């Protein structure tokens, strides 16, 4: 044919590789924490308090990113902190995604009473201010990793539900859905094999975004001391502690912040990159 279609191909973006690289490091750090962390993250040693990072004068070998005011190794604590961040991102992200997307698909495709009930609940849910809602939930559920994850799921499923429902509604109006009916597909099959592949890119984008949000929410809750017990290092907790000694030991604050920042950024970029790479319509 006489046209330029198909000649324009996107490069597999640096976006995907860079964010993928960071997330791999993140996951490996979390999984292999006991093997790779140079020190015991909980070991306090007042002789070693507030050691600067390795490249600053006065550092001690073996404490690459320095130590905090109790003499605990910052690098090891960041590595162990990745465990909590990873658990929250995976469990909270996936659970939120599954619940929200399933309800959104059902509401958008079957319409009728299912849609009315789900949409009404979403409306009511969204009327609560999320931060207050979270603090309230933790107060009721008690602190701890499970509570944090539950709180995130309970608050954030509406985000998926709304977006997925709207997208499903859009797709349901397309002729390829009518065409599936003419072909004799059952409703369920039409939903799963025709509509879902077209809603999936939106779901993936939301999921990676949600994983980043979950990491932040956990950090915020740790920061206000509502998350996990103090013997498990968390990035939010480290940031809270680092804040108090910012003038004496900036590294206690800065390094966990950097870890948090790159992780959240990478999740979002990874989602976008996956789409660029694998969505046949964009390719």
């Amino acid at each position, binding site marked *: *044919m*006489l*046209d*330029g279609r198909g*000649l*324009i191909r996107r490069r597999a973006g640096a976006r995907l590789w860079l964010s993928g690289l960071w997330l791999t490091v993140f996951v490996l750090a979390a999984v292999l924490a006991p093997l790779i962390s140079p020190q015991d993250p909980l070991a306090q040693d007042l002789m070693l308090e507030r050691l600067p990072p390795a490249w600053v004068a006065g550092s001690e070998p073996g404490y690459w990113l320095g130590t905090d005011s109790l003499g605990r190794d910052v690098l090891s604590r960041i590595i162990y902190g990745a465990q909590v961040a990873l658990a929250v991102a995976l469990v909270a992200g996936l659970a939120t995604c599954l619940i929200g997307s399933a309800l959104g698909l059902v509401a958008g495709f079957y319409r009728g009473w299912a849609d009315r009930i789900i949409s009404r609940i979403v409306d009511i849910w969204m009327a609560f201010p999320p931060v207050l809602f979270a603090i309230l939930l933790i107060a009721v559920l008690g602190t701890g990793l499970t509570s944090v994850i539950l709180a995130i799921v309970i608050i954030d499923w509406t985000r998926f539900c709304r977006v997925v429902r709207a997208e499903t509604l859009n797709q349901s109006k397309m002729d390829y859905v009518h065409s599936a009916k003419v072909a004799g597909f059952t409703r369920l099959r039409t939903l799963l094999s025709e509509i879902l592949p077209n809603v999936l890119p939106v779901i993936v984008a939301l999921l990676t975004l949600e994983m980043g949000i979950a990491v932040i929410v956990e950090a915020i809750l740790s920061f206000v001391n509502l998350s996990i017990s103090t013997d498990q290092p968390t990035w939010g907790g480290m940031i809270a502690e680092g804040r108090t000694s910012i003038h004496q030991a900036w590294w206690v604050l800065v390094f966990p912040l950097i870890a948090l920042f790159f992780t959240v950024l990478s999740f979002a970029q990874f989602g976008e990159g996956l789409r660029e790479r694998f969505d046949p319509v964009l390719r």
Partner: protein
Amino acid sequence: MSGFLEIRGLSARLAGTGQRLLRAVDISLPAGSVRGLVGESGAGKSMIGKAVLGVLPKAVEIVEGEILLDGQDLLKVPPAERRRLIGAKAALIPQDPLTALNPSRRIGPQITDRLVDILGWEKARAASRALEVLAEVSIPEPERVMRLYPHELSGGMRQRILIASAFAAEPKLIVADEPTTALDVTVQKQILKLISALQARHGTALLFVTHDLGVVSKVCDTLSVLYAGKVVEDTTVERFFAAPQHPYSRALLAATPRHTDPAASLQPVPQAVIDAAMAEIAAADAAWSAHG
């Protein structure tokens, strides 16, 4: 005689891949006359219209050639000046009346904005001009229609409004890009008659993009047949329909539906004709890159 619009040796290509989209196109359009631009999908018809109006997609770059509008080469003036020139002298009638109007704004301002913003008219003058052109395209109760939203009007009415809007600034050149493909045959006839009448009354030059030779035979004086971005035939309507010269033109004519002679119409373009046309283009390309 040189035309009001004069395109000379215009070549364009896709910036990324270097694929050629227009191949040394020559088109001359005297003031007050109508030229059809025909060819199959992807031949580059819209591309020429867009080049004239200065709205080519970013991915497309002009390699060489001139576009003279009223004697001035649009490709040699700075962009701001070019926009002003085009805004004052040319207008577009777009293809799809459903998407060409902003759905959340009333009709009136959508017509007057251009007059006020680009030509610097006073609001009152623009409004009275809008009423005038709406009446000219036979819209009943123009005052009321000015206050309506696009979705409150049928497709045919919306296309009339786009035509009114194109003629509002008294342009000397109008590019109509398949203005009736979204409409049914009876409405198409009304709209085409309307465009022809307005064009004749105002002495506007009209560049009419279409793939339908039936329409060309009714509204155009001259036509250019495009194939793969190359003008393969440039002739008058009378001569073309009496005896098309290029084999591709003949094939295109035989493909056009003609219910008065069903046996001789709707014939697909033979592969041999396509092969020959492609060979001709390849030869021209080779000669071109040899001298360039």
